[in-house]
């Protein structure tokens, strides 16, 4: 997908790698700065985008890319992440026990929990084109 630097919408498609997640964060940070999005909000948006993208990079066997679209609409930030891996709804994952003692804490599931807590809305769909699509909204005000 082409970039749209002046249209206010960020569109980005990247190959699957840990480095791509770094590129995604650099681009989102620059986009947030251009659109004067408060730092705390930008940080939450980055986190949500990274967690979804990282999930694809680490776990989606057979996926070849992930694509991120970000837009600001009034007092909301709208974010969508798509990938061409096997059907998987990350929101179906159980939450970790955040009251467990250090020895018993399991690092799994933290990313999805952060997505759930930081987004106002989050919705998964398997698209007609055979892609996983996670669509989220975040409050744009600090």
């Amino acid at each position, binding site marked *: 997908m082409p970039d749209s630097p002046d249209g206010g919408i960020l569109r980005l498609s990247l190959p699957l790698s840990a480095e791509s997640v770094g590129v995604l964060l650099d681009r989102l940070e620059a986009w947030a700065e251009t659109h004067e999005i408060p*730092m*705390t909000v930008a940080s939450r948006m980055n986190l949500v985008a990274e967690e979804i993208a990282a999930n694809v990079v680490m776990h989606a066997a057979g996926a070849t890319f992930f694509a991120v679209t970000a837009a600001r609409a009034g007092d909301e930030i709208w974010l969508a992440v798509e990938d061409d891996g096997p059907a998987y709804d990350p929101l179906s994952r159980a939450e970790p026990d955040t009251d467990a003692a250090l020895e018993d804490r399991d*690092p799994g599931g*933290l990313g999805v929990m952060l997505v759930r807590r930081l987004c106002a809305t989050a919705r998964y769909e398997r698209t007609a084109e055979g892609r996983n699509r996670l669509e989220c909204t975040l409050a744009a005000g600090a």
Partner: protein
Amino acid sequence: MEITETTEGGQKIAVLDGRLDTATAAATEAKLTEMLASGGVIADLSAVRYVSSAGLRVLLKAAKQAKSGGHGFSVVGLQPAVREVFEISGFDKIIPAFATRAEAVAGAG
């Protein structure tokens, strides 16, 4: 991510500068593992404005490694966005966090 090693009050300090994310987790983990092999570590996160779950995993591993080795592991200078992530994930209950290095050194002693 840049990691500088220093000492304060006889305690090893890992000064982290940058994002602790999917792209930087592996290098950060390697450095902390190496430092923790020979004693306790205080991770100064004053210049870390962003930690994702990949970063949390690194800190959890470090805390577990320290505990099993009978050493201390604490963090210093959590920025607001990082503190929010710590609180949501319950890490504020399992990794000691201090406002300053001096307080962390006193806590480790």
